[in-house]
């Protein structure tokens, strides 16, 4: 008889009745000779029986109407795009690590105003800033094209801020989706590879001119403000002291449009 050593996997497969008959017989012989192991295996088999017994009745319950497959095929339930779904998608993309950007604060702060804008920027930062392959869609070398594209889509003249005085080079940008429509995202880096994200989009009525406020959460800090109908935000993993003068510079340049 071929005697491959009995493995832990064999013991589980024995419990789960997943072994070929020959191997199964081999394990059975082994268990006859090893009462301690046999006791463990018997205990696992008992677990299995108890779990199956405990849950069996669920599968015998009559199906509720909502789970009638013919009905689902005929009229699929149209679910509104729920905020939860969006947030869940973002979490799955790995934004969960953004410190204090919890679902809780997101709900509490509502979806309007500068905090929403800063959240959108933080999401974009979380998705694109760590991207080493394609953080931006249009590179800085095509900034004319970039400017035209985002201005057309935002239906506003948008100018790409020049942050070279602060030591940050434009890497490029892209259009990003927000719950308030399209927004223009620009990304910058410095000689250390630190990245900054600027996000801008039109604001709702009533929020069109709002003073600059700090938006600091977890390790992503930033500033947001609105000027002449457009909202702006700058975020990065830097201190507020470092970001404030850069935000001021962006505001100054945007006002000069």
């Amino acid at each position, binding site marked *: 008889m071929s005697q491959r050593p009995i493995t832990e996997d064999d013991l589980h497969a024995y419990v789960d009745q997943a072994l070929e008959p020959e191997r199964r017989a081999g394990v059975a012989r082994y268990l006859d000779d090893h009462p301690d192991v046999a006791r463990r295996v018997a205990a696992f088999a008992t677990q299995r029986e*108890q779990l199956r017994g*405990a849950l069996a*009745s669920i599968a015998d319950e009559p199906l509720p109407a*909502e789970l009638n*497959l013919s009905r689902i*095929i005929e009229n699929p*339930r149209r679910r509104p795009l729920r905020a939860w779904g969006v*947030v869940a998608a973002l*979490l799955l993309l790995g934004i969960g690590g953004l410190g204090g950007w919890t679902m809780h604060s997101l709900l509490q702060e509502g979806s309007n105003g500068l905090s929403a804008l800063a959240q959108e920027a933080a999401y974009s930062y979380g998705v694109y800033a760590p991207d080493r392959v394609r953080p931006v869609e249009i590179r800085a070398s095509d900034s004319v094209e970039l400017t035209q594209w985002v201005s057309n889509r935002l239906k506003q003249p948008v100018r790409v801020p020049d942050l070279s005085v602060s030591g940050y080079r434009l890497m490029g940008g892209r259009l990003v989706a927000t719950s308030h429509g399209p927004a223009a995202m620009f990304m910058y880096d410095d000689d250390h590879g630190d990245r900054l994200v600027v996000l801008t989009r039109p604001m709702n009525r009533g929020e069109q001119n709002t003073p600059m406020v700090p938006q600091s959460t977890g390790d992503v800090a930033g500033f947001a403000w609105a000027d002449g109908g457009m909202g702006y935000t700058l975020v990065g993993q830097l201190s507020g002291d470092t970001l404030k003068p850069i935000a001021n510079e962006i505001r100054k340049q945007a006002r000069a449009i």
Partner: protein
Amino acid sequence: MKDMLVQVEPLIPALRRYARALMRDRAAADDLVQDCLERAVSRWHQRRDGSVRAWLFTILHNLAVTQFRQATARGRHMPIEDAGEQELVSAAAQEHRLIYQDVLGKLAKLPEEQRAVLLLVAVEDLSYADAAAVLNVPVGTVMSRLSRARERLQQEMDGVAPGNVVALRSVK
């Protein structure tokens, strides 16, 4: 779609059972199954060859994981001790009710990934390879999680849960 009806409909009771055992809440579980079936309907033509059963469990499992993450992110814990196992199990199982409530209560103490593997393999009869596909991990990981799940559940059943200062052995 006729094809789909024939292949999917018989699996709905098992999907419900898995969802309820994972979520431990009848309404939430059925909602999840409904979501799963809707996705299955809309993606039926995109599925690759292979087990329909594993495909459906994959959709369902991913939906459940998303829900768990949302719950965690919201800071709300899934009920562990007080979910009321009696709600989980109908009166049909009356004679073994206490044993069943006990084992489900102990199952609930296992980490989510161990619970999932134990349910898929020991209750839903998925092959190790199918369970690996559902959980998106190698088969070796399925085996090690299964082993840990069984050891841990046995410790719970023997009253030697990790962290217990005094190990209590149940008298059989």
